[in-house]
């Protein structure tokens, strides 16, 4: 699938994961590539963009036996944006599904 096409949806997936709990970059990358077929590296530009837009904030946390990890967490703006975009996406997806199903019916 087209990468530009996926990107907006991936942003939504990242926000949904971070709504549950704070994560470090690698965790998010693993989580996404477990579910969706993308190159592992794709998630870092997305995280950076979301941070730049003020939807995410970062903090460093020491881990036992390793370098400090950079954690991403959802800001209030991020939370609001997520709720709004989630509703919009679900509505949109529902409509698209109706249209595509319709296409099959027409052929029959």
């Amino acid at each position, binding site marked *: 699938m087209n*990468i530009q096409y996926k990107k907006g949806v991936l942003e939504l997936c990242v926000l949904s994961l971070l709504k549950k709990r704070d994560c*470090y*970059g*690698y965790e998010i*990358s693993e989580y996404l*590539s477990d579910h969706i077929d993308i*190159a*592992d*590296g*794709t998630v*870092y*530009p*997305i*995280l*950076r*963009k979301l941070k*730049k*837009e003020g939807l995410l904030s970062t903090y460093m946390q020491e881990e036992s036996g390793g*370098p400090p*990890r*950079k954690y991403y967490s959802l800001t209030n703006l991020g939370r609001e944006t997520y709720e709004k975009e989630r509703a919009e996406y679900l509505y949109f997806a529902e409509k698209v599904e109706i249209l595509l199903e319709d296409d099959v019916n027409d052929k029959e």
Partner: protein
Amino acid sequence: MTRNEFLSMLADELKKNRITDIDDIVSEYEQHFAFKMADGFSEEEIAAKLGKPDVLASQFESAGEVRKRGGRKAATIMGLCIVDIFAGAFFILLMAWEVIMAVFSLCNAVIAVCLFSGISPWSLIPTIPSWPGIVFGLSLASLSVLSAAGCIYFAAFIRQLMRSYSRFHQNTIAAASGSALLPSLAINPRLPAKTNRRIRSVALISLAMFTAFFVLGMIISMIMSGTLEFWHAWGWFGY
């Protein structure tokens, strides 16, 4: 590709794309390698799964990263300044025309009042019998209304033109700095349909009245003075 090859290629590509804060980005990928290698993957496997460094670097650019100073944005702003000088001169011209129309309308109104009342301030109004004077006064009053309607519409037009231009201005800068664009605005003023209709009928009626009263005034003057060139008979121009 090994870990070091991947990271240095990524840093080079980011530098080429003028992305800021390259170290921070590269350190995220270093961490990714560290985690994966701890899980027992080889450097080549990890690099292959990450994707191509040049493709990833271009994704940082399209993610709205701010380019370094002196890039496209500065050139755009310089270009805009030049466009602004011309557009500014153009707007001054348009506003001057608006002022001329307003003064024209006001003068016509004042002359009409003088003709109605028969007052001739500083003897500026030439001698004219009161009958044709009133008819010419009505004609000038209509012309005053007509130009006032023109004034109102033209003011709305200038306002919309300036708003549309400033939106273009904003969007050009936004495009150069990679932020979101606003929808562009049309040049034509979007007056409410009711206002539009009213202005149009006022303009048409006043135009018709101006023409009718002007012709009527001429005819009455010609009959009263008994000559086609009545202005000579009443000595308007001093001969």
